């Protein structure tokens, strides 16, 4: 699509176009369309851990470098972190915090759905790979979160298996306690 003179175009725009233009600068408007979540989630899993977490908290960049390289793990991406047999616990906790910070912010850098999935994935990974609990959520809340994440069509099968395992490892829920999606 050849570029046009947008300033000139605005001078002839309809009220609907002008309204859309105002909205384009508005806070709280979704950046990405729902049908793009699959590509965004895939991209997030292949993204370098150091890049996103380093930006999230600049002060911990050096620490992160040490963590990702620790024990010769040489973790580079979030996918490698989640699917490593013994991922660094601290790195999972930082990932969880990064995801949480992006979950409900109006101008979040991650779509809320993807941030939520990363959040529960961090907790599930710590539970399944290390037997550690890095969240204060109740079992019911965790089960609900895992179930919601598994239900997203854009979550890959390998990740779903991890979430199902984490959910299965939780103590059985009491009969009659319904667990709606978050």
């Amino acid at each position, binding site marked *: *699509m050849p570029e046009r003179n947008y*300033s000139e175009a605005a*001078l002839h725009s309809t009220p609907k176009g002008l309204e859309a233009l*105002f909205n384009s*600068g508005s806070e709280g408007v979704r950046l990405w369309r729902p049908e793009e979540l699959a590509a965004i989630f895939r991209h997030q899993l292949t*993204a370098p851990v150091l890049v996103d977490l380093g*930006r999230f908290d600049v002060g911990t960049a050096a620490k992160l470098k040490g963590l990702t390289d620790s024990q010769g793990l040489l973790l580079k991406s979030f996918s490698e972190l989640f699917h490593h047999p013994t991922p660094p616990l601290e790195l999972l906790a930082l990932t969880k915090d990064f995801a949480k910070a992006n979950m409900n912010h109006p101008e979040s850098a*991650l779509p809320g759905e993807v941030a939520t999935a990363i959040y529960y994935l961090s907790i599930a990974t710590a539970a399944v790979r290390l037997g550690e609990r890095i969240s204060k959520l109740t079992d019911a809340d965790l089960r609900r979160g895992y179930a919601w994440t598994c239900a997203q069509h854009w979550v890959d099968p390998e990740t779903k298996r991890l979430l199902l395992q984490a959910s299965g490892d939780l103590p059985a829920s009491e009969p009659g306690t319904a667990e709606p999606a978050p």
Partner: protein
Amino acid sequence: MPAPAAGRIADRLSQDDKPSIFPATQWTQLGGAAIGGAEDLDRLIRQYWAPLRIFFVATFPQLRADADTWLQDFAEDKMLKAGWLARADRHRGRFRDFLKTSLRNFVFDRLGRAEVKQAPVALEDLKIEVADAPPPSEAFDLDWVRTVLAETLRRMEEDCRNPAEDQPRRSHIWEMFRIRLLDPIFNDTEPPPYGELIARFGLVSPTDASNLLLSGKRIFRAHLGRVIQAYAGQDAATAAEIRALEDFVAGLAKRG
């Protein structure tokens, strides 16, 4: 009515190097006898000439043929005179309304003066007609919004295309804003899907992508604020004016 002079404002409107708009001056600073900003006011007038013209022609259709001359005289006799802008006190209403009222009064006043010979229309007839006609404010305000947003986009593009050394991604910000938000509005196209953006912009993570788009939104908002602040004044008045303009176009868009 005086004849148009060579080199007058209307003759210069087509210049490519259209300057920025209203003087970046607070209302409270405009009370002095000499504004000392004739150049700024000149720019102001040139920027908002189109909405003023629309208002003038809609209000005084009988004077359409001489619209530019009337506006030229209004600019020289009123707007460029020291003290005029000072009267547009922010406590007395919005600048846009002040401008319209001022122009109306100017026309009535001039037509009513004894020295105006062979006026194109009798003042009394004109007053009756204006009173009966629907208010042309909507057309004026619509063009005003267009002018404000056009100036905002012009500044934003210029800003992004001429980045400072420490802003190497500025051109990417414009490009992302353009293809994701502007093209769908102005070209009625679907924005390119996320997957395509990864290679196009060399994105390493979704955060990268979002930050480009969010930066574009912030730059747009910042320029919009500056464009409006130049005539609306203080932050609160600017925020109110932005809301008023948004509500106005939303109302029009809803009516279709």
